[in-house]
């Protein structure tokens, strides 16, 4: 097993720079997710770690060695692709043994290692099948088996679950996580799905437009997003934002929204953010109009309008509301995140007094 270090890695296609000096350190045995919207450079970064793309500048270090010039097969990594990339003309066993065959391992040892991996993934009964005869989930499992069989130092996953249906995705998510807990192999996992990243990763690297926005544990990112982008990207439904201004320690938004901003020194344009589950129906407060009610059984999603801003609410309890109803909003001002209106960076926390919106 090995640690992975990414030092100021840059990727250019001709004059176009798509990854701008990304740095990250991944400890031995850690499970790190690279997450971001499509086109943010996360897959390119992963492919540079794998050795499938050249590194334009900077260095990738695996287990203490700079591997920029090392061929993929000698980096001691294995990769699981989004479309599985199984060899269609080989059986499951042959697919898994291909790397071992190329490494000229003795036949009986190949067989033993394939058998072990197959047992681990529950593929024993499928070893003689061809990929075309398997379901999506089984193919995904074979792709993982092919990665495991070599016992690499680093696993690379490139959106491995996005071709599966929602139910299977949740199941495979747990399986991959369980596998990591058993093998403790350093893993780098690319996904655009923040829930996948949140549920599986020890740490998350949030990327946008070829740069790292924030690196942290899932809860760090959730509780202390460094900027507006991370705040909006992490969490589902995503955080509510109200544009306004902070003057003398008070945030003033459209429609007379006032939130005490505590002892923030910031003055000028600002954005207040609050998670949907932190908004409550209050007895007092200004009337907000209910626009949409979505009961899911466990919880109720509300979309309300207040002073021209639309806010999402996530209630744990069941409510009898209909579109057009007027409700009051209550929340703790400690739950409000403030962001600089210009730089979009997060401002220090507000005070902890419980407040309501005042019209």
């Amino acid at each position, binding site marked *: 097993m090995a640690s992975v270090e990414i030092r100021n890695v840059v990727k250019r296609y001709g004059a176009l720079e798509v990854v701008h000096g990304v740095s990250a350190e991944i400890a031995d045995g850690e499970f790190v997710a690279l997450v971001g919207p499509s086109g943010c450079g996360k897959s390119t970064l992963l492919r540079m770690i*794998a*050795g*499938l793309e050249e590194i334009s500048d900077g260095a990738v270090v695996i287990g203490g060695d700079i591997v920029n010039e090392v*061929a*993929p*097969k000698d980096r001691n*990594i*294995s*990769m699981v*692709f*989004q*479309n599985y*990339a*199984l*060899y*269609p*003309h080989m059986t499951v066993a042959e697919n898994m043994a*291909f*790397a071992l065959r*190329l*490494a000229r391992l003795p036949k009986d040892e190949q067989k033993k290692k394939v058998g072990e991996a197959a047992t681990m993934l529950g593929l024993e009964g499928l070893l003689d099948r061809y990929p075309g005869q398997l379901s999506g989930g089984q193919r995904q499992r074979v792709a993982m088996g*092919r990665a495991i069989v*070599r016992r690499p130092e680093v696993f690379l996953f490139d959106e491995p679950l996005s071709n599966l249906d929602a139910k299977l995705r949740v199941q495979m998510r747990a399986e991959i996580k369980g596998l990591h807990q058993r093998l403790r192999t350093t893993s780098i996992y690319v996904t655009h799905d923040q829930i996948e990243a949140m549920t599986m990763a020890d740490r998350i690297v949030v990327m946008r437009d070829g740069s790292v926005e924030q690196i942290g544990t899932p809860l760090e990112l959730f509780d202390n997003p460094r900027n507006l982008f991370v705040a909006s990207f992490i969490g589902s439904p995503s955080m509510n934002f109200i544009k306004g201004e902070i003057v003398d320690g008070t945030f003033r938004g459209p429609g007379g929204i006032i939130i005490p901003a505590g002892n923030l020194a910031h003055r000028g344009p600002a954005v207040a953010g609050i998670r949907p589950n932190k908004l409550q129906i209050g007895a007092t407060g200004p009337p907000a109009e209910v626009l949409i009610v979505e009961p899911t059984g466990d919880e109720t999603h509300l979309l309300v309008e207040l002073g021209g801003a639309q806010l999402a609410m996530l209630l744990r309890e069941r409510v009898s509301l209909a579109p057009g109803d007027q409700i009051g909003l209550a929340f703790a001002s400690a739950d409000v995140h403030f962001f600089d209106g210009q730089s979009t960076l997060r401002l220090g926390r507000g005070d902890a007094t419980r407040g309501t919106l005042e019209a």
Partner: protein
Amino acid sequence: MSSKRPQPYFSRSQVTLVRGLWMVVTAILAFMTLFPLLWMVSIAFKPAAESFSSNLIPQSPTLDNFIYVLTAVPFVRYMANSFVVSATVTIVALFFHTMAGYALARLRFPGREVLFLSIFSTFLVSLPVIIVPLFVIVKAMGMLNSYAGLIIPAIFNAFGIFLLRQYYLSLPKEIEEAARIDGAGYWRIYWSVILPLSRPIMSALAILFFLANWNSFLWPLTITSDPNLWVVQLGIANFKSQYSASWNYMMAASTIVAIPTLILFVIFQRQIMDSLKTSGLK
């Protein structure tokens, strides 16, 4: 489903009419294609005097023509020549064409597009246009009147390279990348992954190549004068002299020559249909 069928866009009588029309057109085309073949077989069984009679069924059917063709001239030798040339061209061409197609589809090297376009542009030039310079070159290389002269020029063919390149472009790149991570080099990827994956298109191409060479006439005629090197098509043409033509012998020989292609067709019917669909040519 019950008797209630979805409302068609056309009334039933219109559909029947159009269908009938199509069948008539198809039948005429099929007849026009098949009739010369039937005529060929018919003449092959007629004695020379009856060659030009208009009856399709020979009045006194005979096998003499076949016996003459197979004994009086070294026709078996011609067939062996044809087979050796066609099979060699097919195998060697497929080997090089798959490699060239893969390189043009996947490897990045300077001048790749120019190279591909120049190969592709040879499509526009047919054999009769280049036959004189080609003859001069092949003669200068000392391959006149040799199997090499028959085989080597026929290997260079843009069609196979083009078709294979298009096919390789459609293969998912990730399979090759997975192979690279598994430790395969270019040669190993080509041999263990790309070639097995191109089996369907290769069988289609093999049939096309084999038939094209089996039926080729102009180039063998140009490059060989030694009767020992003649291929079947030359053998057939030889029954025709300047002032007379032994049509009964020619037709018997043609029938014999058609048999291997017919057998090929029956065996590889599906692949041939697929190849025609993929190539959109011929």
